[in-house]
């Protein structure tokens, strides 16, 4: 039996809001695309909680009722829900500017009322012009920051902060980054191998900053070329090639329509 999947998403900038009916679903990273962009979902279950587990069902987490839960599509995960819930899908760089898709489940009880108002905000924002929608998307991004900051600190948190600092420098390299972290270069490479390696992460952080800027109303008057002056890419063609790889779209296309045609990242699955 396949759970009915409500595929009438509401799209605001690069955020997508779905209503999921009761059933079993799989949260996945997009397949069949060369895009390296990663996604996270905010799950808003009102009356009954829901269960989140690994694809093989080995680790199971019960998400309590009325507790907003943010989960990254790091590995293929199953979600079992008893009653309809709202799901907000967004690229992970919206969360902390971080290119890593960490195995993350974050909850914030104190933000419950504000986060549960997100579907209503998006429904009203859909009537605004594109500039207004982009402001609304940035507002939602700010509302989600506390969830990310609430996460307990981990080893990778330090690596992220060092990479986020390094990405602004044109001459950033693995040696100086490893030194800043107090580890050897080979250890750094080994730690970052699951995420695609040091340079992939560094470029992803740079590209995400640019992608975010392209969607900000403050930069609407500037051309892609002008914005590139402020980026540490040595050559424009290198930037355009990497951007297309990550977002499956050119920078100008991303600016006009930030949602590339990607396969659904929430798939119904047989019970």
């Amino acid at each position, binding site marked *: 039996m396949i759970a009915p999947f409500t595929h009438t998403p509401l799209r605001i900038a690069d955020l997508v809001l779905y209503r999921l009916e009761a059933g079993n679903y799989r949260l996945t990273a997009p397949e069949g695309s060369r895009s390296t962009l990663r996604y996270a979902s905010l799950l808003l279950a009102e009356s009954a909680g829901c269960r989140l587990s690994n694809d093989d069902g080995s680790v199971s987490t019960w998400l309590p009722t009325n507790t907003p839960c943010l989960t990254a599509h790091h590995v293929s995960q199953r979600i079992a829900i008893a009653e309809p819930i709202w799901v907000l899908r967004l690229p992970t760089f919206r969360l902390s500017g971080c290119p890593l898709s960490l195995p993350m489940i974050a909850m914030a009880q104190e933000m419950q009322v*504000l986060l549960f108002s997100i579907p209503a905000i998006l429904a*009203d*924002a859909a009537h*605004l*012009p594109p500039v207004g929608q982009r402001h609304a998307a940035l507002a939602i991004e*700010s509302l989600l920051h506390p969830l990310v900051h609430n996460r307990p600190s981990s080893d990778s948190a330090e690596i992220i902060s060092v990479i986020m600092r390094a990405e602004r420098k044109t001459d950033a390299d693995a040696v100086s980054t490893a030194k800043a972290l107090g580890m050897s270069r080979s250890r750094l490479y080994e730690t970052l191998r699951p995420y695609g390696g040091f340079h992939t992460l560094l470029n992803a952080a740079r590209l995400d900053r640019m992608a975010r800027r392209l969607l900000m109303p403050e930069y609407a008057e500037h051309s892609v070329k002008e914005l590139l002056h402020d980026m540490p890419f040595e050559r424009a063609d290198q930037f355009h090639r990497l951007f297309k790889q990550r977002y499956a779209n050119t920078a100008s296309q991303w600016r006009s329509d930030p949602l590339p045609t990607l396969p659904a990242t929430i798939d119904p699955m047989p019970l």
Partner: protein
Amino acid sequence: MTMTKAPARQKLYTDHLPSREGEALWHELLAPITTPQRLHRTPTVGRVDAWLYGDMLISEARATPQRTIRNRQQLAAGPLPAYNLLIVLDGQMRYEDGQRDCALQPGDLLIEDLTEKRTITTQTHNRTINLMVPKEGVGEGLHGLILERQSAQARLLSRHVDALLESIPTLPAQHCDDILNALQRLIAACAGECGSESHRHVQRALRDDIERYIERHLLDSRLGNATLCRHYRLSRTQLYRLFRQEGGVTEVIRRKRLDWAHDQLCRGDGRGKPDVEALALLCGFASERALATAYQEQYAMTMEDTWHANATSLPADGSQGLTGLFSHLGQLPRTPT
């Protein structure tokens, strides 16, 4: 940016006090923002239940019928660079600011700039939610913007403010910057479309730009119609039309120069009384006497009196201003409820 702080609450009710005391306390409470005036024989009193959260000040207010005015004399004391989002819950209001004269119904949302003049008249008892946020981060030119109750923009902001009011007691200190940022973005999102037609936007932007130019060259003796026409490539008529509501550009320059002179007199930093003749010369007045007459017309007091009164002004920084406003509320005597 101020240090992040946990939400703090202050309540002040003046409607339980004997009418004269209650009215005096109400006037003192509103003094940094507006001056209340009686409409009928009913005293001007009310209740305020306010929360300060970081750089935001959110309050629910109830008041008797009254007119609240923010005018030139009040602005000269140093206004708060903040916007106030006023959501009408109960009561009918009339808003006037020289360019607009509109009625506000329950559900309507008004954005007012606390550095601009306006008059709000309420003929009935009213209940409102007021949310003050620093202007920095929202943008200029939103003063007098009214979001009508059926619009998506008004719904969006009202719902969010409701959710904020509901959750504010439990919100931790470290989230206040993110929440303020979200709120400022939502205001920008809603204000973007609602501003009237683009022509008026351009006119307003041009007027603001000219005002900034005037402020930068205030003490330049050559500043006047001719300089501005040449600098902005406008005809005298076009320039006059831009400032018609305020009596023409010459009047704007004269008023700003008087405000500057007032500022010099109010500055009680132990330097002694400024030389009035020098002030007159700097402000482009023919004589000390001409300045004194113009000053008295504008401020309804002599320059001598201003200097002696050494008017205290509110801090210029928006965040400190809101904190100051909140502590001002806390210093007023309370009424047991």
